[in-house]
């Protein structure tokens, strides 16, 4: 078969084994290969430090975005299993235990002013405010300023707030992390004038 000799050519095609400094997916090892029917369109480079993603889109292939929930069927686990671990406390015929503030199982809703839909995050997966704020900034593609006890969040028009179990809206960062994680019921990222108002010690 003529095609089998093409495979042998790949072996001696040193380009395939050449070390390159570029990020993977940027090279086309089979550029002139007669078997090739498409450009490498699946590869995406993921910048680990900034958490941003560059997308190559060709041929209408489904995009891999920073929210894995958008890829159907990924990760490959049975839906049955997903239901059990995501809502460990929600059972048929029982009320959700609101007094249980075990951070391990806590998902909280996050809203941002001006965003069309809410997100949900798992507080137990963060170890502190830095990680939480970094995640929120990635998730909503915004910058939240620097926290200070006096000024609130300086340097941007966004301020993260949360509703605690007494129903009050608090600025994220005022209390120790553990206390926050166990008392936070939901998050809201405020924007604009309202957000700035919080920083003025009102």
């Amino acid at each position, binding site marked *: 078969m003529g095609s089998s000799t093409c495979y042998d050519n790949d072996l001696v095609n040193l380009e395939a084994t050449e070390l390159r400094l570029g990020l993977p997916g940027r090279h086309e090892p089979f550029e002139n290969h007669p078997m090739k*029917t*498409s450009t*490498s369109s699946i590869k995406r480079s993921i910048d680990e430090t900034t958490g941003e993603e560059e997308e190559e889109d060709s041929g209408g292939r489904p995009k891999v975005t920073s929210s*894995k929930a958008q890829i159907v069927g990924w990760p*490959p686990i*049975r839906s049955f*299993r997903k239901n059990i*671990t995501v809502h460990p406390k929600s059972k*048929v015929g029982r009320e959700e235990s609101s007094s249980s503030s075990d951070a391990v199982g806590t998902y909280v809703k996050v809203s941002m002013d001006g965003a069309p839909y809410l997100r949900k995050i798992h507080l137990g997966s963060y170890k502190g405010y830095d990680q939480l704020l970094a995640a929120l900034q*990635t998730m909503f593609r915004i910058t939240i300023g620097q926290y200070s006890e006096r000024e609130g969040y300086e340097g941007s028009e966004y301020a993260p707030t949360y509703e605690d179990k007494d129903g009050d809206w608090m600025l994220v960062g005022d209390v120790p992390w553990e206390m926050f994680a166990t008392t936070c019921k939901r998050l809201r990222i405020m924007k604009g004038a309202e957000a700035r108002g919080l920083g003025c010690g009102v």
Partner: protein
Amino acid sequence: MNYFPDEVIEHVFHFVESNKDRNSISLVCKLWYRIERFSRLRVFVGNCYAISPERVFARFPFMKSLFLKGKPHFADFNLVPDDWGGFLYPWIEYMARNKVNLEELRLKRMIVTDDSLELIAASFANFKSLVLVSCEGFTTDGLAAIAANCRFLRELDLQENEIEDHRGQWINCFPECHTSLVALNFACLRGDINLAALERLVARSPNLKSLRLNQAVPLETFHRILVRAPQLVELGVGSFVNDPESEINDKLTSALQKCQSMRSLSGFFEVTLSCMSAIYPVCENLISLNLSYAPEIPGNELIKIIQHCRKLQKLWVLDCIGDKGLKVVADSCKELQELRVFPFDPHGVRNGAVTEEGLVAVASGCLKLNSLLYFCQQMTNEALITVARKCPNFIRFRLCILNPTKPDAATMQPLDEGFGAIVQSCKGLRRLSMSGLLTDRVFHYIGSFAENLEMLSVAFAGDSDAGMLYVLNGCKKLSKLEIRDSPFGNVALLMDVRKYETMRSLWMSSCEVTMGGCRTLAKMMPRLNVEVINDSGDLDKHGDDNQVVNKLFVYRTLVGPRKDAPDFVWTL
């Protein structure tokens, strides 16, 4: 062997249990074919559409046990529409009508209805065992019919099914005279259960060896059950929640200590952590531990439990065990053969809590490891190469990096070399799932080295048709190939069409095959069913050859296109 009477040959065949061997035996000569078919009691049908009930029972008239599989594997991950197919009813209806003496039924990924269950209960007087894995379409009413009517039922095993729970009294339906139960697993039911009826059932089942409870069974009931059934070998705990001050805890500890035969533990859907120490004495003899449904047990408690499990052979956990916990596994569980690490938080922002370090640790410490399913945050070639070197005995190797195109975390290179090392070193590898950044090169390795590979799962991998072709050309024993989101098209699909008759099935979704390619394949190979699944409604059935086919399922069959396909499934 020609000089032996048939009865002697049949007696020899009786000792051959594996169906693969029996299939080989039946090819030797017509006499052996005839003797074998009359002596086969357990029949396995890997694809319910490859053959019809009529033909199965025509060939094996004395069949007592049937194992049927329905939907393609990717149905587990919502890639196959619900009503694609895999209906049980026609099989039951045929068997009932033709008075087959069915005693055991095992099903995977099939649509089971209450009607089917009721028909089973009404038709097979000696029915003994029902095992349903990843099935759906039925309710607890169907279970009630089985419980009420199958007088000799020994085993009812429900694994990860989607069952509509009517919170009725199905467990009451076991009659008082029913004392033959050996195994009962209803862990996947989400509703409440009649606890008193459950306790009475356990009390009158002296042969009960395996019992897996659901989340609705509280600790008090669990304790009473343990007292009644200290002979249990396999136990699935429901809810392990208790007031730590309660005196039940001491009673529980002593009840557990009396369970000398206990070898397998699972469940723990919810727990009170301070009560967990009650299970430590049981851990010493455990060979199987499944805590993958116990999201409330954190890593440090998992470590405490595992340190007691010195004889463990099979471990399923959530990734909150962490690399640190896996190092403890490596130190404590020297007999470990199978490890599965599931993601605690599949869609969360956090990418998973185990890395290549945990895997290397386990591979280095557990030299008998042969089966792996590992969901992790990242992987490196170096780690995979080390694992391949330390554990050449892998039969099943499934690695899932939560970000599906992530490269080697240290070098940013594709993971071709790592997986290449695995297939090269593990000569007995039968099943492989890959993820991460992968080029055509990894497929070249697989085609060259994976001689015993039977099942390969590919996602977001490869650069060109060459990748798929390496596998089709090289893996002689390939039976199931499933591919998603990879750049393989008509050239790969059509290069060796005869290959698909040597395989059970091929699945391709979000690849680059077109209607033209599928039509050509169907035309060239009449003994394949080439199914185009148009659930998105994008395709025109009589339209252009250039339309890209989003979901394609190809399988060999002796009975032609199926008649139960829904509108959006076209057999070309």
